[in-house]
């Protein structure tokens, strides 16, 4: 029998009807995550055709993208940014009510960014197929799940049938040798990987991250890595589950309990790829040689170690537009570039360890004059945990703003935006033109680099602040 990769095992276990030359496979979806922005038109289709939601019990709903993050005293004070966003939020509430889906809405302690609450609630588990109308669904692959983003039409397919029509993707192993040096994090690693394979290097593939450096990451770090698989063009990224995974899941709300948990762990252990399983492509990265990474262009593949000069422009002019937009000069170091806004948040880097790393650098220090720093926890549960640990005090004493959870400045849909021309150093995942606000210039970095830059008032190497 052919040796199977982790991906092969999960895919094969979910094929309801095999693919043929004429027809894609019918793939069963164990968990469907929905949010307010990419689901309304799918519910409209269900309504038009008189269809129910097939499995409300496999559907996890929250609101995160257009929700405000400004702290309020009571729910009644919540101010949504504009009438259409408010209408979208109301529509989400109506859709969930009408179709019998439990919504983790404004009043829920379990509300948060969809890719943060899935794992946090233990709904994300090894071996599951997980989809969401959101490209960063790849995050959940950190648990050894096959998780990928879909469009709204497909959201409708899953709501109506709990299945998708899919062609089997190719596989790519990303073998990460060695270990990360101090001050170099999972975020730096994934930025380096994207820089290496390119923003379209993963197109058509599911990535599996392997090797010593991946094994030694905690679940938050693995989620950061898998989260940005889509920025390399890949639909999904996966990490084989191990004791770190099982320890994380034990006793979480939707995780199996007691003897059932032990049985699940036995099953999950078998998901690891067979020795000698063959990938369509393999790439090797040496983790020990990496420095903290920052982006300098308008896609996540334009990335550089923070402590060296920017590369010279390629002669084909392909960087000209990006460097003009970023107002950065080739051949000059990016460190020292003045920063206007610092954002710590998003489904890439807004978990407890990210907030702790931020606090460790900010503790007892002050954000530089003229710099606005926004710290947005990934979920209400993380907010509560951070506050119980006193992190919010560290943040506010340093001069940063501490917010309610949500996507916030990652995509600037809820009113948290960066003004035109301003430079933001951001722990999110996309430095596209205008992503954080019209004309906003984004530098992607780890929480440590973001915090160090907030203190310095310019792009800074976090290793100087450890």
């Amino acid at each position, binding site marked *: 029998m052919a040796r199977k990769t982790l991906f092969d095992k999960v895919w094969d276990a979910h094929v309801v009807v095999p693919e043929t030359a004429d027809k894609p496979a*019918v793939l069963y979806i164990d968990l469907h995550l929905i949010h307010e922005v990419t689901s309304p038109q799918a519910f409209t289709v269900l309504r038009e055709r008189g269809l129910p939601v097939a499995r409300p019990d496999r559907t996890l709903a929250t609101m995160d993208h257009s929700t405000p993050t400004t702290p309020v005293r009571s729910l009644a004070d919540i101010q949504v940014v504009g009438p259409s966003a408010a209408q*979208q939020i109301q529509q989400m509430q109506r859709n969930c009510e009408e179709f019998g889906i439990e919504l983790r809405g404004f009043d829920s302690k379990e509300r948060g960014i969809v890719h943060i609450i899935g794992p946090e609630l233990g709904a994300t588990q090894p071996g599951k197929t997980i989809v969401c109308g*959101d490209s960063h669904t790849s995050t959940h692959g950190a648990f050894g799940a096959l998780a990928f983003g879909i469009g709204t039409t497909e959201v409708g397919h899953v709501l109506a*049938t709990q*299945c998708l*029509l899919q062609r089997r993707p190719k596989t790519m192993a990303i073998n990460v040798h060695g270990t990360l040096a101090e001050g170099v994090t999972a975020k730096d690693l994934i930025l380096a990987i994207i820089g290496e394979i390119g923003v379209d290097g993963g197109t*058509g593939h599911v990535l599996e991250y392997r090797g010593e450096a991946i094994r030694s990451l905690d679940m938050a770090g693995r989620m950061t890595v898998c989260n940005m698989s889509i*920025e390399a*063009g890949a639909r999904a990224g996966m990490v084989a589950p191990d004791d770190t995974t099982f320890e994380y899941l034990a006793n979480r709300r939707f995780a199996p309990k007691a003897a059932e948990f032990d049985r699940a762990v036995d099953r999950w252990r078998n998901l690891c790829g067979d020795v000698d399983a063959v990938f369509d492509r393999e790439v090797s990265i040496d983790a020990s040689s990496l420095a903290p990474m920052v982006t300098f262009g308008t896609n996540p593949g334009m990335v550089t170690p923070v402590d060296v000069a920017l590369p010279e422009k390629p002669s084909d002019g392909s960087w000209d537009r990006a460097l003009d937009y970023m107002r950065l000069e080739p051949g000059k170091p990016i460190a020292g570039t003045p920063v206007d806004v610092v954002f710590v948040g998003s489904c890439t880097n807004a978990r407890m360890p990210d907030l702790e790393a931020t606090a460790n650098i900010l503790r007892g220090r002050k954000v530089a004059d003229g710099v606005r720093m926004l710290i947005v926890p990934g979920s209400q549960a993380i907010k509560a945990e951070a506050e119980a640990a006193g992190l919010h005090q560290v943040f506010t004493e340093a001069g940063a703003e501490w917010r309610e959870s949500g996507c916030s400045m990652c995509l600037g849909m809820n009113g948290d935006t960066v003004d035109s021309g301003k430079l933001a150093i951001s722990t999110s995942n996309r430095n596209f033109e205008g992503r954080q606000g019209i004309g906003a210039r984004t530098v992607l970095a780890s929480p440590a680099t973001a915090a160090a830059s907030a203190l310095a008032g310019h792009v800074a190497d976090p290793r100087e602040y450890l």
Partner: protein
Amino acid sequence: MQRFTELTATTVALPRADIDTDQIIPARFLTTTTREGLGDGLFADWRFLSDGTPDPEFVLNRPEHASATVLVTERNFGCGSSREHAPWALLDYGFRAVISSEIADIFHSNSLKNGLLPIRVSDDVVKLLLSRPHKVLISVETCTLSILNDAGNTEKTIEFPLDGFSRYCLLEGIDQLGYLQGQSDAITAYANDFADSTNPAL
């Protein structure tokens, strides 16, 4: 879904690589709950100046390209966010097909589900099509893109890849939900026999 069999059209070139879906339709237009009207936001940050007036320099605003319905771009079109608002915006604006040497996975899948044809061709063909507007004939039946000369005769015909099932859906103008619903017995059996015991619901 609109049927797509054959199209004779003029191309317009947007010579940029890695055009992400945030450029195609910026996030501030995503608070809508319908599919209609998104063409107004298509490439909004490129099409409009900061005072909201059209940028006369931007290619889509030039009168000579007003009738173009096929967009040609450099590699990796549609990368980034999974927002289906991107093909909705392109269609609403009047585009019927996109040609590039690489088209991002999710955008590709979303386009096919809405009758916007993603056409992947070699870098050389893209380079040729980027040089000036061309008249083209696109056939979904034969999965070919023909480049026509001024007299309307075929100068060059290129095959492009298209999954058989997607091609069938485009030709018939049907969506895939009906097909999936037709599999309900197999789906129920799978859920009962496997999913609900192995990967139980919440």
